């Protein structure tokens, strides 16, 4: 049995269930308590959980850093940064503190914290539109979830809250309103297990979040042309399920990555390098990336469309990669 939820409400349902289950879970950030989060997915939580849900000053260093401290001292904080771009404001706290404190102190602590942040494009310009996935994936000590459906958003967030490691949890802004079926009852989605969203034999496309939605739309169009592509959603980028991608590429012989981030040293670059190391003999066509061409993300919608991969762009590159 299942029920229909939007991605945003699925996140809310995960938080409600986990906060009811475990009194050590707290939730805070800018505009979180009274306003219910800048994208309003948290409305009503303050009423139910009182001081366990609170607003903070505009202080990203303290939002992220205090989560590390609170986690060291027995709580399970879920801290929200208002935009994923603000990871850069709190880079010391996220990358160096959440990521390395446990290691630097010889494993003396567990750091069960989640940093939630809305990522991706809505035409908000260079500092409010990024998907900073690669920065986090590059940094040891941090788990990274990139949910693409309401069911995954709920199940991954519940798993994240229960994990004893720091998790960065990027919620894509364009997906908040997306509706989908969410299994009833206790729904937990494991980290490190990719999901083949569409089976196919001609080509493997790896994509997540909004780029997954566009890739699946492209796949439908390509199917009508007789090109049967497989679409793999990594679900989490740390841990990263190499095996599912490698198995797919061994089957199809070709791979392209579609990502909503800068091209150079992006997640796609990492996947390409992995294929060179581990699937060189299985590729019979060149590896391809579709990504933002190393420019800051503009604000005007038609400029955004000129740099962020669109369905048409995916279709075009996929055709070029069709088996000969």
């Amino acid at each position, binding site marked *: 049995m299942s029920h229909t939820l939007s991605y945003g409400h699925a996140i809310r349902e995960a938080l409600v269930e986990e906060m009811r289950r475990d009194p050590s879970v707290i939730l805070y950030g800018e505009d979180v308590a009274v306003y219910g989060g800048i994208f309003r997915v948290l409305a009503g939580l303050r009423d139910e959980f009182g001081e366990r849900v609170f607003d903070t*000053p505009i202080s990203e260093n303290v939002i992220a*850093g205090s989560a590390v*401290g609170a*986690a060291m001292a027995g*709580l399970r904080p879920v801290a929200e940064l208002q935009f994923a771009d603000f990871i850069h404001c709190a880079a010391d706290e996220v990358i160096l503190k959440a990521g390395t404190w446990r290691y630097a102190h*010889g494993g003396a602590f567990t750091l069960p914290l989640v940093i939630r942040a809305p990522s991706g494009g809505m035409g908000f310009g260079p500092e409010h539109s990024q998907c900073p996935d690669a920065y986090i994936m590059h940094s040891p000590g941090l788990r990274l979830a990139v949910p693409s459906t309401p069911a995954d958003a709920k199940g991954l967030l519940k798993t994240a809250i229960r994990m*004893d490691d720091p998790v960065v949890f990027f919620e894509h802004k364009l997906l908040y309103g997306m509706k989908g079926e969410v299994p009833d009852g206790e729904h937990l989605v494991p980290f490190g297990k990719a999901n083949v969203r569409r089976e196919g034999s001609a080509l493997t496309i790896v994509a997540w979040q909004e780029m997954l939605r566009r890739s699946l739309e492209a796949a439908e169009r390509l199917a009508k042309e007789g090109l049967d592509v497989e679409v793999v959603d990594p679900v989490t980028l740390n841990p990263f399920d190499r095996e599912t991608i490698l198995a797919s590429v061994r089957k199809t012989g070709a791979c392209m990555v579609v990502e909503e981030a800068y091209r150079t040293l992006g997640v796609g670059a990492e996947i390409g390098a992995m294929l060179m190391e581990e699937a060189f003999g299985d590729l019979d066509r060149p590896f391809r990336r579709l990504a933002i061409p190393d420019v800051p993300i503009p604000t005007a919608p038609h400029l955004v469309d000129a740099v962020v991969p669109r369905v048409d762009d995916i279709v075009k590159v996929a055709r070029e990669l069709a088996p000969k």
Partner: protein
Amino acid sequence: MDDATRIEIFRKMLLSRRLEERVRQLSMAGELPATLHPGAGQEACQVAALAALRPDDPMLYGHRGLAYWIARGLPPEKILCDIAFKEGGTNGGKGGVMHVVDPSRGIFGESGTLGGNFVIGVGVALAEKMRKTGRVVIMFFGDGTSNRGQFHEAANFAAVKKLPAIFFCENNGWAVSVSAKVSTAVENIADRAAGYGMPGKVVDGNDIDAVYNATREAAERARQGEGPSLIEAKVQRFLGHYLGDPEPYRTKEDVAKLREKDPLPRLQQDLVKRGLLDDAKLGAFEKEIAETVDRAAEFTRAQPPVAASTALDSVYAT
């Protein structure tokens, strides 16, 4: 402060000074890596502040010396093993002397980037408050670190949330080679407390009573739910920023003048005056401490290096 506490503060200051002297000696001889940022001259405020707190009150310590850990009863050999990257330390070679840790003694570690202690410390304080443990968090920092942005964010957050926290500044007037006169416009770091709506107090960091009383008052206030305090101890750094620092930024005469304020002989004379110490007792202390330091050094020498294969451990808990 009772007599036993007074003597214990002296003993821990003396042990910290002697242990640090041994670390310097072994580092100069090449037996230990020269990674310590020496704290000679600042032991009184460190030990006295911690004496005013409960043994399990969480502490995030600063870069200066070993006294924070000695004050919490950490065995000296654990410190030496961390410095030497040997088995038997507290962080298995992952963090060296900068990340000595023992949560059971309230030693919660240190941020390598200055200022990280503030935001992590107020997070610990947030948890202690929400969990109603009655614990107070102390964050040690230097005058230099007070210029990091995290100081501002954490001080404001702690004050507005009335968190049980003590911001304890050891103002030695130097940030590596940069004088506070060049880096900081206010005379007292404690003056900044007013801007956050918390009490700020300047104390003589060489006066254990002043430090102890101020810390005790701040801790009581915090435990009663009244929020954080800022204490600024005026101290002096006898040695360079690191072992081997040529100190081109100050003269030998400057340092000699600072040494006149040494809190160790000052407390020693005070204890003699109070009838708590005489030559025989002092001799016994020195002998016991020398033996402790010898044993710690020998233990460390005999320990195996941390196994290289462990470099991959402890990144994740799961």
